C-alpha cells in the first residue's frame, strides 16, 4: 500500500458515513455516532499512517507522494485530478485529522447522547431539558443523526481540500465546506437568528468565492493547468506569470490571480471586510463552531494562500520589495488582527470572544504570509488549530455546565453570558485547566505553550525583515489578545459565582472532557517542534524541525530569521503584561463590565462591532431585497414572464376555438352528418320501390330477365 494510495482513501470514510447515516441509521442515535466516529477514526488512522510515512522521506518537497488520474475529458486532453502529500500538506493533514476526531468524539457528549427525550423538544430547536424523576435533566438532541451526517460531510470536504493536488478539487472541498457551514450554522433551523446567520455566512463567503473562481479561471487560462506542482514548482511558469502584465491596476498576471485568490481567503477566513459572518456563526452548536472556526474551514482559507505562496510572491526575493499582492495581504492581515482584537475586548458572550479571537489570529497568519514569513504562517496555522479547537470545545463544556445549573435551579439566564458565570474553577476543574492551557497558548505564554513559539516567530520575522508597521500592529494586537483572554478566563472561572446557575454548575461527561485533555497536550507540545535553532539555551533540542521540514515545500527554502532579542522581549512583555492586566481589571468584576465606565462611548462602539453589520445592511442587504421584490418579482416575473405566458395561453385558446368552430364542426362534423343524411334520404327514396305488390316485382323480374335473355340470344345469333 503506497502512501499515495492511502491518501486517496483518506477523504472517503466520512463521505461514506454521511450517506450511511442519512440513508440507513437515522433513527438509531448510537449507530449513527458509531458510524461517524468510526469514519473519523479511520481517516485519522490513514492520515497518521501517511504522515509518518511522509516524515520518513528525505527531501519530501522534491519527491512528494503524488498520484493522479485523468478525470474530465476536455477535447483532446484529459484534466487530471489527484493527491499530493508534500510537507505542508503533511502537517495540515496531521492537525486536521486530530482535531476532527476530537470534535467528533466531543459531539457525542455535547448532543447529550443517552439522555431522555425532552417533552417540548422539536427538531429544529435546541433541546431544553427533560423531566427525570421530578427534576430537570439535559435532554438528547432531536436531530442527533443529522448532526453527525453533516459534520461527516464537512470532514470529507476538508480532507479533500487538504490532499488535493490541484486547485479544482481544492475548490470542490472548499465549496462542500461552504455548504456544510450553511447546513450546520443553521442546524437549529426553527430559530430565525440561526437561519439568518446561515444565509449570512453563505452569502458572505460566496462573495469571496466568486473572486476566487475568477482567479482559478484566470490561472487556467494563463497556464493551461491547475496542478500545484506544475505551476508552483516551475520557475519558468512563475517568471512568465510575474513578468506579463495583466492590464488591470498595473498588476502582473501573477499579481492579479494572487489577488483574486486572496479575496477568496478574505471571505473564507473572515478577514476585514468580509468578517461579518463569523461572529454570527456562533448560532450553530459549539462543536460546529470548533470545526468551522478552528480545525477546518477558516484554516482552509489560510492553507490555500500558503499553498499558493509561490504565485503570490512571484517576483519577490527575500529582503526585497514585497509584491503588490503581498502588500495587500500584509495590510489586511495586520489591520484585521488589531481590529478584531479590539472588538473581542468588549464582548460578553463566551463564544463571541473566541470568534473575534479567531478572526484576529487568522489576521496574524495572513500578515505573516504577506511579509514573506512562509514557515511562521504555517506554524501558527497548526498551533492555532489545536488551541482554538480546545478553547471552543472548552467553552461548549462551560455552557453545558452552566446549563446544568440552569436546569437545576430553574433560573432563566443566558448560559453563554460570561457575566452570569464565575467561580467555575472549583465546579469544573478539568474544563478549567484545559481552558487555561488553551488560553495561555492563545496569549503566547512564554516557553511552555505552542502559541508562544508560533507567534514569536511571526514577530521575529516581521522585525527581522524590517516591516516595522506590521510588527507594531501585531504587537499591540498580541497585547489585546492576552488581555481579553485573561478577561475571559477570570470572568468565567475565577472569583465568585455571579448567578445561582453558576453555583450549581457541574463538570461535563468524559466524552467531552477527554478531547479537551488530548487537545491541551498538543496545545503545549506542538510548539516544541518549532523552536528555532538559534534560540538561547534550548535551541539545540529539536533544532528547527518544523522550519526545516516545511520549508522543503518551496523551491527555494526560506532562511530562518537570525535571532534578535528585541522581538523576543516585546513578545514576552505583551503576553505577560496583557495576562496580568486582564486579571487585575476583572478579578473583582460584578454584573457590570468595568471597562464600560472606563472607556465610555468607545466601549459601546466596540460592543456593537463598529456598527459594520448595520452599514452593510444599509448598503447591500436592503437595496438587494428591494430590487428582488419590486423589480425582479413584481415586474419581470409577474408582468413580463407571466404576461407572456397568459398571452400564449389566450392565443392557444383562440386558435383552438378557430380550429373547432371553423374547421372541426363544419367540415369534419358536417361531412359525417352529410353522409348520414345522404344515406337517409337515399334510403327514404329507395324504399318506395318496395310497394308490397307482387305483380310489380314480377314485372321488374320479367323485364330484366327477358331483356337480358334476348340481348344474349340475339347477340349469339348475330
Amino acid at each position, binding site marked *: 500500500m503506497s502512501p499515495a494510495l492511502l491518501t486517496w482513501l483518506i477523504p472517503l470514510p466520512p463521505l461514506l458515513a454521511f450517506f450511511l447515516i442519512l440513508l440507513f441509521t437515522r433513527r438509531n442515535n448510537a449507530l449513527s455516532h458509531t458510524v461517524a466516529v468510526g469514519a473519523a477514526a479511520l481517516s485519522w488512522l490513514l492520515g497518521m499512517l501517511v504522515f509518518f510515512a511522509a516524515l520518513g522521506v528525505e527531501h519530501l518537497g522534491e519527491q512528494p507522494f503524488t498520484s493522479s488520474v485523468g478525470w474530465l475529458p476536455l477535447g483532446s486532453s484529459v484534466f487530471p485530478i489527484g493527491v499530493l502529500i508534500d510537507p505542508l500538506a503533511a502537517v495540515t493533514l496531521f492537525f486536521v485529522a486530530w482535531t476532527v476526531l476530537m470534535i467528533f468524539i466531543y459531539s457525542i457528549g455535547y448532543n447529550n447522547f443517552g439522555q431522555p427525550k425532552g417533552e417540548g423538544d422539536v427538531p429544529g430547536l435546541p433541546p431544553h431539558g427533560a423531566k427525570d424523576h421530578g427534576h430537570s435533566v439535559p435532554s438528547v438532541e432531536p436531530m442527533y443523526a443529522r448532526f453527525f451526517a453533516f459534520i461527516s460531510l464537512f470532514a470529507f470536504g476538508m480532507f479533500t481540500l487538504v490532499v488535493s493536488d490541484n486547485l479544482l478539487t481544492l475548490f470542490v472541498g472548499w465549496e462542500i465546506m461552504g455548504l456544510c457551514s450553511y447546513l450546520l450554522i443553521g442546524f437549529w433551523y426553527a430559530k430565525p437568528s440561526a437561519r439568518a446567520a446561515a444565509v449570512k455566512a453563505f452569502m458572505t463567503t460566496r462573495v469571496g468565492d466568486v473572486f476566487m473562481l475568477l482567479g482559478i479561471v484566470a490561472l487556467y487560462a494563463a497556464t493551461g493547468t491547475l496542478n500545484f506542482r506544475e505551476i508552483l514548482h516551475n520557475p519558468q511558469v512563475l517568471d512568465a506569470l510575474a513578468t506579463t502584465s495583466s492590464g488591470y491596476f498595473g498588476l502582473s498576471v501573477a499579481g492579479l490571480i494572487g489577488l483574486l485568490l486572496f479575496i477568496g481567503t478574505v471571505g473564507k477566513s473572515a478577514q476585514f471586510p468580509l468578517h461579518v459572518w463569523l461572529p454570527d456563526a456562533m448560532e450553530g452548536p459549539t462543536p460546529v463552531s470548533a470545526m468551522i472556526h478552528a480545525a477546518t474551514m477558516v484554516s482552509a482559507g489560510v492553507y490555500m494562500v500558503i499553498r499558493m505562496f509561490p504565485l503570490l510572491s512571484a517576483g519577490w526575493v527575500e529582503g526585497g520589495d514585497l509584491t503588490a499582492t503581498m502588500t495587500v495581504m500584509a495590510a489586511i492581515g495586520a489591520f484585521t488582527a488589531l481590529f478584531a482584537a479590539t472588538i473581542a475586548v468588549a464582548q460578553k458572550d463566551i463564544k463571541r470572544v473566541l470568534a473575534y479571537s479567531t478572526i484576529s489570529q487568522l489576521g496574524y497568519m495572513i500578515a505573516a504570509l504577506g511579509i514573506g514569513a512562509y514557515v511562521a504562517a504555517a506554524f501558527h496555522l497548526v498551533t492555532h488549530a489545536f488551541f482554538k479547537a480546545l478553547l471552543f470545545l472548552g467553552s461548549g463544556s462551560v455552557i453545558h455546565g452552566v446549563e446544568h445549573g440552569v436546569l437545576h435551579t430553574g433560573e432563566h439566564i443566558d448560559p453563554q453570558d460570561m457575566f452570569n458565570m464565575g467561580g467555575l474553577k472549583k465546579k469544573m476543574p478539568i474544563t478549567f485547566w484545559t481552558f487555561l492551557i488553551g488560553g495561555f497558548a492563545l496569549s503566547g505564554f512564554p516557553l511552555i505553550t505552542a502559541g508562544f513559539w508560533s507567534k514569536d516567530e511571526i514577530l521575529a520575522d516581521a522585525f527581522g525583515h524590517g516591516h516595522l508597521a506590521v510588527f507594531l500592529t501585531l504587537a499591540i494586537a498580541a497585547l489585546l489578545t492576552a488581555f481579553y483572554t485573561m478577561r475571559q478566563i477570570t470572568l468565567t472561572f475565577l472569583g465568585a459565582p455571579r448567578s445561582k446557575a453558576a453555583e450549581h454548575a457541574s463538570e461535563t461527561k468524559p466524552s467531552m472532557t477527554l478531547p479537551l485533555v488530548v487537545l491541551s497536550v498538543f496545545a503545549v507540545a506542538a510548539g516544541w517542534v518549532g523552536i528555532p535553532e538559534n534560540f538561547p539555551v534550548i535551541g539545540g533540542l529539536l533544532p528547527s524541525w518544523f522550519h526545516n521540514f516545511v520549508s522543503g515545500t518551496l523551491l527555494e527554502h526560506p532562511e530562518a530569521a537570525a535571532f534578535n532579542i528585541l522581538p523576543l522581549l516585546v513578545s514576552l512583555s505583551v503576553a505577560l503584561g496583557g495576562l496580568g492586566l486582564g486579571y487585575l481589571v476583572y478579578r473583582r468584576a460584578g454584573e457590570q463590565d468595568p471597562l464600560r465606565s472606563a472607556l465610555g462611548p468607545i466601549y459601546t462602539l466596540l460592543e456593537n462591532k463598529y456598527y459594520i453589520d448595520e452599514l452593510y445592511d444599509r448598503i447591500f442587504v436592503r437595496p438587494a431585497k428591494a430590487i428582488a421584490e419590486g423589480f425582479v418579482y413584481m415586474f419581470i416575473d409577474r408582468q413580463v414572464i407571466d404576461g407572456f405566458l397568459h398571452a400564449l395561453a389566450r392565443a392557444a385558446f383562440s386558435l383552438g376555438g378557430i380550429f373547432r368552430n371553423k374547421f372541426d364542426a363544419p367540415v369534419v362534423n358536417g361531412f359525417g352528418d352529410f353522409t348520414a343524411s345522404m344515406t337517409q334520404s337515399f334510403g327514404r327514396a329507395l324504399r318506395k320501390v318496395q310497394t*308490397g305488390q*307482387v*305483380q310489380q316485382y314480377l314485372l321488374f323480374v320479367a323485364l330484366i330477365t327477358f331483356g337480358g335473355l334476348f340481348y344474349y340470344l340475339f347477340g349469339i345469333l348475330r
Partner: protein
Amino acid sequence: MIPLSWYLTLAAGLFSFGLYGVLARKNAIAILMGVELMLNAVNINLVAFWRYLTSDSMNGQAFAVMVFAVAAAEVAVGLALVISVYRRRKTVSADEINLMKW
C-alpha cells in the same frame, strides 16, 4: 304439313297472354289462371319439339308429364294459400295484399 314455326308461334302467343294475365290482373285466382296458360304454352312447345326433332325417344313427352304434375301441385298449394289469405284479410286482390310494403 304444319311447320314447326306455327306451333312455336302459337306457344309464344299463349305464353304472352298468360304473362299479361299474371302481371295485370288484380284477383289472385286470375293470376293463377294466367300461370296455367303459361304452363300450357310450355307444354305445347315441349311436345312440338318432341314431335319434330326428337321423336325417337320419349324424352319430350316425359318432360311434359312432369310439367303436368308440377302444375297440378302448384295450383293446389296456390289456391290453398289464396283461401287462407282470404280467410285472414277478406280479400283476394293482389293490390291489397301488401304487408311487405315499406
